[in-house]
């Protein structure tokens, strides 16, 4: 399939609704995200953040409304879209009984990555796991799992990267490495990140969005945000103190 003609917006969401029985996990969510932007999504537990990412990554179908990522519709062009997105979750999405290298080779095959061996080696070096490439993933620490998870997500050179609480459970050193990796690839990718950490999320983002009860409470470019006002809105919405 050819690339869509206009992809100025990396993500276009219009009246997106997702229901589970009587419960509305997403309620007419609408926003745009330009190509190359970094969107941080904030909100309390159950706000619909993960459901939104699941819809945008084609893992869950929307009940109503439309969503396009890189110009591809999440329902009609799901297969084509999947080869253009990557997901880094707090869950590593790796097979514990395969080695680091075997995991990456497997996913390279799933994405049809050309010259997979070279690409795998290149990414293992980039995430500083080359020396552990033959070790089973079940022996890895949380930080190492997350680094390998990043390599998995980048294998097929996706245009849009979704990060679902990627810093969750990481020690300070692993946070540093993840920060460094994101910085390295920042210029070539569009990011959509779910975060509970307001400081971290705001520091990284070019756009911010607050979701509550499935609805968009606030959506704005970073430069238009007054930090104190944003924190107040966040606090009022989430009902929690801001660290």
């Amino acid at each position, binding site marked *: 399939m050819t690339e869509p003609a206009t992809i100025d917006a990396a993500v276009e969401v219009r009246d997106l609704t997702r229901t589970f029985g009587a419960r509305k996990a997403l309620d007419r969510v609408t926003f745009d995200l330009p190509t190359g932007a970094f969107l941080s999504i904030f909100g309390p537990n159950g706000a619909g953040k993960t459901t939104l990412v699941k819809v945008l*990554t*084609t*893992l869950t*179908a929307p009940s109503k409304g439309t969503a396009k990522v890189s110009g591809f519709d999440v329902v009609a062009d799901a*297969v*084509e879209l*999947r*080869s253009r*997105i990557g*997901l880094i*979750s707090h*869950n*590593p*999405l*790796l*097979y*514990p*009984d*395969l080695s680091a290298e*075997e995991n990456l080779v*497997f*996913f390279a*095959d*799933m*994405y*049809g990555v050309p010259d997979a061996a070279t690409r795998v080696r290149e990414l293992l070096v980039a995430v500083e796991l080359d020396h552990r490439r033959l070790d089973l993933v079940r022996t890895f620490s949380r930080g190492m799992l997350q680094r390998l998870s990043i390599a*998995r997500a980048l294998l097929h050179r996706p245009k849009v990267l979704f990060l679902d609480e990627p810093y969750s459970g990481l020690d300070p050193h692993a946070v540093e490495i993840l920060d460094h990796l994101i910085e390295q690839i920042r210029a070539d990718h569009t990011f959509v990140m779910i975060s509970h950490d307001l400081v971290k999320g705001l520091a990284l983002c070019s756009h911010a969005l607050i979701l509550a009860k499935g609805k968009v409470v606030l959506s704005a470019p970073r430069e238009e945000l007054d930090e104190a006002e944003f924190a107040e809105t966040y606090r009022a919405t989430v009902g929690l103190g801001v660290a």
Partner: protein
Amino acid sequence: MAGEARGLSLRQFKAILHKDIVMELRTKEMITSMGLYALLTMVIYQVALSQSGTAFDPRNIAAGLLWLAFVFTSMLGLNRSLVHEKDQGCLEALLLSPVDRPVIFFAKAIGNLIFLLIVQVLTIPVFAFLFLQQGSYAGEWWMIPLALLAGAIGISGVGTLLATMSVNTKGKDFVLTVLFVPLMYPLLLAAVSATSAAVLGGDGSVQQFWTGMGMMAGFDAIMLLASFALYEFIVGA
């Protein structure tokens, strides 16, 4: 473009199958549990039939006993084949890739078929040793592997579909059993009939064998096509 897509699908199919075999060789979870279960079932059969007396010929119920063991053994393995995909969100990662869902189905079903055939190969000699005395096997030898293969294809195909359905449910073992046994009923009847013809031989056994094989082939074709069509919906649910 179509050739490219076919090439990618083949690469994905081989990758999933290879990954499942490598993981099984490493963990031996399925083969060990299925093999042990099948062998223990044989021992229980022997105890159960030990007081049946000399007038009773176990060959008359041999096919039924065999398929009973295979059905319950396969249910044990089928659940495990999907459970490791759920570990650490691996199924989600698989579904995130640009793979046509039927490719996942066929790769998982072929993997399950291979493991079930291995268990069958291990079980048959033990069964023959315990229940089929020397010289008592009256059918054509080639009928047995054909009947086992046709039955195993149906079990693996339907089982893979149902295991995918049940893996997200709370009582997955219970759900799989409740769905699996009624759906497998026609296949089991045909498999027992064909295997009985192979074991007992005699007049009309070849015809009985081919009738059973025909029914199994029909069941396999219908169920595999239905699984192929439904898998996208089921795996995404």
